[in-house]
């Protein structure tokens, strides 16, 4: 049986003017377990708290009810006071007799009656309270960044600058990501490589940053502060330590027919390759699918020409296991496949290209050395047509329902650059809406129209028809002029929708991070916690969370870094003790609870239990209290009632219900 003290606050006249506080204290004494009751002017004052402390000590109280203002106001105050007196702070409950009673009722008798009932409910609850202790877990002072694009690089740099070790895992042979494929960036038109490359170098040179390229996350276990991650370092067949990056192997490699991933398949590369000249690390990899040595066993040219002796055909994949306190996902995006959009003739004509392909064409290091030309016949185009929203804003399953956000701006950029470099080329943009919310964005778009004479037509293109003369007939409509347009073009550029990179769902599953139907990772709160995953210790950086341009990506990368740093700066994590707990004797192991847990806090173990003498191994739900936030979704979904929430247990809430309805 508890020994409960009840403390009724007058709150000056805030409570005492409408509630007979003496009566409340008097009635409280009649409740089971109550051994002490008093009232006081201001319970939250020093003197008031002292009264509570004194009573706890003198009367050996095991539980306290304070009848006062909202627990949202002073619960912490009174819990701290109780702690001072040596009582577990979670043995204190508040009866809210101000906001929920004295302030909203006028009749003294009525308000007093209600206050008595609210107090009774709090007493009933405290009778079932148990001392709770926040758990502690340690924090490994190291962060993992998954993805080595601009988002991952920026996040890693910011975390490393704060003094913490960071590992970047990048799937491709080099870091750099999508941004390294871009030619110029809007709205300033500075060269992408010029601003990205220094950052890549900085990251690789940073003493706190360790980069795993050509590597993938294989397995994740653990939880916030204490993750263990297995990283698969794919065999490069080139020794990272020996290679000098001279490039002779790539030059001499006789197999040069593999489509270049970096140039979006517009040209080819050798079987041993670095994706691009400024690659970091500047160490090639061998693509075994196109390498003659791997396919036939004969060749070995690269090995012969390598003066450093870095080629090693026997290399194997390697698994590195590492501990991390925080993980940042920065897996980025790709453009969607256009298989569902036959009407734009992408697969029928080489002169219909995506915007990302155009970036490579415009780039001096690209397949055409920066010359704008048709891939069908190498001729310079005279009429260029850009089609917006290809696969974006699409309600059916052919495309994506969202706006890809960056296309309006990069199309204005492309149009402007083409008009600038080739003033004789006519550029027409078919758009549905032009969306330019960003600093200097609309000005940029207007410049394309007003200074560069880009022809914007409101209306989506219905069809692109390759003509026998090699031209492309674009059938569109001008909604403002109300006329249908048939336009002959030399090249058509599709502003293709972007989607999260392939494989992100697998990563999200490993991390138990939630992910939406479009494969974007879900944030913990759409407005207030936009760079955190609901899963503690997982942070989001860049397009993996939603479409973004470079400045936004960098801003979010910094924000994610700060959140990660905030976590890494702690030595220990104190966990909320009001977490769910599974009773192993009642648990069926049915997995229903894990399905509703937003934090991935529930796992299942085969555990030997002793159920009244019967020893057997059972599948049991186990709650990781470092991850559980205490929402209670699992407790209701559990059919056997094995799950219960500490601090808000079934019996406690039922006791409150009973006390109110009595």
């Amino acid at each position: 049986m508890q020994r409960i003290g009840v403390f009724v606050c007058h709150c000056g006249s805030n409570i005492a003017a409408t509630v007979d506080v003496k009566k409340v204290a008097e009635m409280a004494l009649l409740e089971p377990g109550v051994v002490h009751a008093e009232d006081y002017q201001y319970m939250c004052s020093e003197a008031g708290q002292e009264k509570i402390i004194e009573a706890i000590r003198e009367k050996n109280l095991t539980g306290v009810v304070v009848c006062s203002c909202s627990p949202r106001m002073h619960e912490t105050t009174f819990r701290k006071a109780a702690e001072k007196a040596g009582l577990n702070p979670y043995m204190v409950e508040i009866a809210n007799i101000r906001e929920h009673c004295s302030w909203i009722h006028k009749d003294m008798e009525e308000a007093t009656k209600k206050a008595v009932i609210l107090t009774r409910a709090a007493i009933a609850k405290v009778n079932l309270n148990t001392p709770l202790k926040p758990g502690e877990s340690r924090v490994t002072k190291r962060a993992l960044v998954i993805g080595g694009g601009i988002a991952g690089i920026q996040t890693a740099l910011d975390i490393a600058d704060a003094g913490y070790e960071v590992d970047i895992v990048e799937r491709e042979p080099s870091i750099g990501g999508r941004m390294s494929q871009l030619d110029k960036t809007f709205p300033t038109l500075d060269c992408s490589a010029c601003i990205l490359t220094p950052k890549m170098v900085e990251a690789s040179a940073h003493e706190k940053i360790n980069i795993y390229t050509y590597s993938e996350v294989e397995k994740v276990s653990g939880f916030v502060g204490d993750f263990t991650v297995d990283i698969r370092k794919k065999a490069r067949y080139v020794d990272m330590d020996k290679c000098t990056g001279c490039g002779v192997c790539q030059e001499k490699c006789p197999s040069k027919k593999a489509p270049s991933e970096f140039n979006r398949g517009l040209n080819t590369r050798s079987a041993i390759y670095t994706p691009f000249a400024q690659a970091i690390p500047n160490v090639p990899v061998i693509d075994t699918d196109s390498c003659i040595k791997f396919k036939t066993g004969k060749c070995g040219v690269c090995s012969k020409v390598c003066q450093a002796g870095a080629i090693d055909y026997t290399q194997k994949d390697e698994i590195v296991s590492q501990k991390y306190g925080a993980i940042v996902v920065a897996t980025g995006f790709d453009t969607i496949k256009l298989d569902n959009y036959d009407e734009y003739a992408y697969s029928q004509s080489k002169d219909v290209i995506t915007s990302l392909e155009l970036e490579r064409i415009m780039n001096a290091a690209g397949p055409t050395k920066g010359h704008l030309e048709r891939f069908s016949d190498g001729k310079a185009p005279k009429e260029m047509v850009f089609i917006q929203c290809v696969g974006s804003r699409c309600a059916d399953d052919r495309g994506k329902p969202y706006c890809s956000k960056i296309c309006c701006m990069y199309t204005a950029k492309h149009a402007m650059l083409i008009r600038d470099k080739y003033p004789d080329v006519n550029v027409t943009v078919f758009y549905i809406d032009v969306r330019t919310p960003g600093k200097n964005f609309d000005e940029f778009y207007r410049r394309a129209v007003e200074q560069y004479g880009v022809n914007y037509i409101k209306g989506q293109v219905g069809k692109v028809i390759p003509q026998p003369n090699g031209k492309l007939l674009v059938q569109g409509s001008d909604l403002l002029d109300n006329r249908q347009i048939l336009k002959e073009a030399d090249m058509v550029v599709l502003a293709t929708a972007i989607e999260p990179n392939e494989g992100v769902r697998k990563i999200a599953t490993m991390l138990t991070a939630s992910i939406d139907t479009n494969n974007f990772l879900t944030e913990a709160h759409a407005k207030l916690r936009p760079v955190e995953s609901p899963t503690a210790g997982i942070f989001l950086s860049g397009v993996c969370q939603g479409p973004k341009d470079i400045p936004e990506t960098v801003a979010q990368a910094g924000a994610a870094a700060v959140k990660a740093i905030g976590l890494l700066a702690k030595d220990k994590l104190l966990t909320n003790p009001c977490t769910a707990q599974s009773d192993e004797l009642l648990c069926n192991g049915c997995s229903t609870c894990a399905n509703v847990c937003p934090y991935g806090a529930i796992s299942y173990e085969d555990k030997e239990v002793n159920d009244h003498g019967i020893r057997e191994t059972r599948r049991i739900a186990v709650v990781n209290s470092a991850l559980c936030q205490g929402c209670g979704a699992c407790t209701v979904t559990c059919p056997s009632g094995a799950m219960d929430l500490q601090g808000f247990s079934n019996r406690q809430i039922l006791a409150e219900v009973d006390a109110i309805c009595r």
Partner: protein
Amino acid sequence: MQELIKRAKELLEDGTVARVLGWKAGDLPYNPEPAYFDSTESLADFVYNGFCGANLSKYLIEASKLEGKTLVCLKPCDTYSFNQLLKEHRIDRDKAYVIGVGCKGKLDIERIRKMGIKGIEQISGAEMEDAADTLTISTIYGERSCKFADAMLERCHVCKGKEHQVYDELIGESKETKDADRFAEVARIEAMTPEEKFAFFQKELSKCIRCNACRNVCPACSCRKCVFDSNKFDSAQKANVDSFEEKMFHIIRAFHVAGRCTDCGECSRVCPQGIPLHLFNRKFIKDIDEFYGEYQAGMDVNAQSPLTDFTFGDVEPGIVGERG
């Protein structure tokens, strides 16, 4: 039945299975009961006929803990329960050898009795081999007969289909016996006035003697310890008078199995008081279908159960009042 026994013998002999879970004859011609057979000799008692309504999937929870595989005979509708139990990790697929047995509808002795047929000594036409649509019943008062379909269990009139959802092999033909609308009775009650509804359920629930047969037979009620037996909700069985669960037992039970109930109809079949308990479960199923899209528990092991799932645009609880 002979083919089934032959195959069971083979599997027992070659060691594929350690035991057979099926039915053996009861003390009356119409009450075969679930039984284990662990030797080829014991299979002499094996029966499978129109009265073998019992859904054996729940027994596999215990059988999964035993050494070796258990051969289990499952009718098409039982396989939904099997899948649901698999989904909930209550049974081990590797410990079961599922023979999908043919089913042409199962019989309800109460229906036969209601036709005024008493003193039953022998029933023919209930064997699964013949496609007889008439039952011939010899009673102490002479020979009587009735249509097979008229003697079928309610659930067979709303049969989910003759396809087994999971099996290792199939033996015997199945027949779809659906000739009624599954939700007709629920819709009829929904259309009543609140007073009529209340009167209907009060009358039905008043018959309840809390024998727990419904709970014990239900494959979804597979908790190690039921909340009504645990002290977690202050709801352990106290006196059977005026306790909370007494009144709410069936509502809470239906809620606990909502989204998991395959509508196998065992609760109604075993209720000694004849309470149409399936009407609770079916109401939830109807609502789930209407509100969240059609869902059949036990059909797809990987499907998300409607109560552990949501969409942003789900209906608000207020719809209950608006729907009128």
